[in-house]
């Protein structure tokens, strides 16, 4: 057997889950789609004392339309979100990004929230959540709390061990969107990925992969917004990016900082091009 021994629980409700997390603070780990966590268990890079399988909790698999936001439960699978008309229309950029995540089989099991929380360097969806200002609904034994995306997936942040994320709230923002990435192999986490989304009122840009956690780029966004429908040159985007680059450039065995820095303006340019050619979903 590959994973190290653990105890296993299969709660039926969020309340029960919060109770288990409170009782085993720091030693319990939630299991959603398992597409990030099970490989870690198999390699014994994660060795929880208790594994809490949330897949049988009822009512967490819905995408709900609320007056000013879209509420997505912890068991909404990536493929389900990718195929959702509501998401395509109201959360411009999310479906475009999801199409680049893994492959259809992984996406049918992997959840949107599990992906965001795993927050692996380069993860496409983290750029979307930060750029759009998504919020997370957390539940622990003490009660419910709503936190902004940067408080959970920003630099140095993570989900408190005693909390379960029950929902992610996406602001409703029909817009034009473009997404592009460079990866070593299709269907794997990118070296650098870029999201560009624009409404008549504002433009937003975020990059994942360039820094350890996704980077929101207001200067690049202003430049692209002002130039619309023309896309600024790569040189102009590179200059804007130096202003936005407030974190150190990520480097790992796959790829060094220099290449990441070099490719980021080109990836942003392509995402902006795609945005410019796309039609507004409004």
């Amino acid at each position, binding site marked *: *057997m*590959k*994973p*190290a*021994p*653990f*105890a*296993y629980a*299969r709660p039926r409700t969020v309340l029960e889950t919060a109770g288990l997390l409170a009782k085993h603070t720091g030693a319990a780990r939630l299991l959603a789609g*398992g*597409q990030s966590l*099970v*490989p870690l*268990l*198999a*390699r014994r890079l994660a060795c929880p004392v208790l*594994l809490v*399988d949330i*897949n049988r909790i009822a009512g967490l698999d819905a995408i709900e339309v609320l007056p000013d936001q879209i509420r997505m439960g912890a068991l909404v699978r990536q493929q389900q979100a990718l195929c959702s008309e509501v998401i395509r229309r109201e959360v411009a950029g999310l479906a475009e990004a999801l199409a680049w995540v*893994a*492959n*259809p*089989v*992984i996406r*049918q*099991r992997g959840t949107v929230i599990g992906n965001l929380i795993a927050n692996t360097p380069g993860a496409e969806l983290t750029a979307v959540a930060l750029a759009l200002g998504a919020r997370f609904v957390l539940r622990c034994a003490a009660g419910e709390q709503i936190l902004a995306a940067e408080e959970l997936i920003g630099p140095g942040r993570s989900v408190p061990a005693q909390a379960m994320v029950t929902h992610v709230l996406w602001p409703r923002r029909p817009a034009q969107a473009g997404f592009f990435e460079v990866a070593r192999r*299709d*269907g794997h986490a990118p070296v650098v990925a870029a999201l560009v989304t624009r409404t008549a009122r504002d433009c937003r840009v975020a990059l994942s992969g360039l820094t350890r956690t996704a980077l929101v780029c207001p200067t690049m966004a202003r430049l692209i917004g002002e130039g619309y429908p023309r896309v600024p040159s790569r040189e102009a985007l590179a200059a804007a990016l130096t202003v936005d680059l407030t974190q150190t450039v990520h480097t790992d065995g796959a790829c060094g900082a220099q290449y990441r820095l070099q490719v980021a303006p080109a990836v942003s340019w392509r995402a902006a091009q795609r945005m410019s050619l796309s039609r507004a979903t409004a």
Partner: protein
Amino acid sequence: MQCLDIRVIVDGKALTATVPVRLLLSDFLREQAGCGGLHVACGHGVCGACTVVLDDVPVRACLLLAVQADGAAVQTIASLPQLEGCEPERGLTPLQQSFRRYHALQCGYCTPGLLVATAKFLAGCPSPDRARILEHLNGHLCRCSGYANIIAAIEAVRA
């Protein structure tokens, strides 16, 4: 070591078993359920060799625990005729024939997962274009064939 009793339907047969909670579904299927046709290669979700259908959804058996399949129906390569909607026990299925005809396998290690996933893929998308086929193949590594023959075999059976 915690164990749980599970009830699973594997390739149409109802099974009950007592399994350690940390046993992976892929190991359960091969070692306890007698599914020798199921192959395991990378063991972390990358290669697609272990793909099976769990309650109608294709999944990586190496990324699920056996206890997670409790109450579910699992279909491996042995259910390929059902997955393709043809009579069981009537020789090779159309996909198998096409793989043979186009030489879409050599060592055959990747083949069971690939056939299961492709049968599901074609059931949902009967006439895929080249781009859709490539996206589908993205989830499957084959060290032998170079993919050209796999693509040809799938193109030959699409509606």
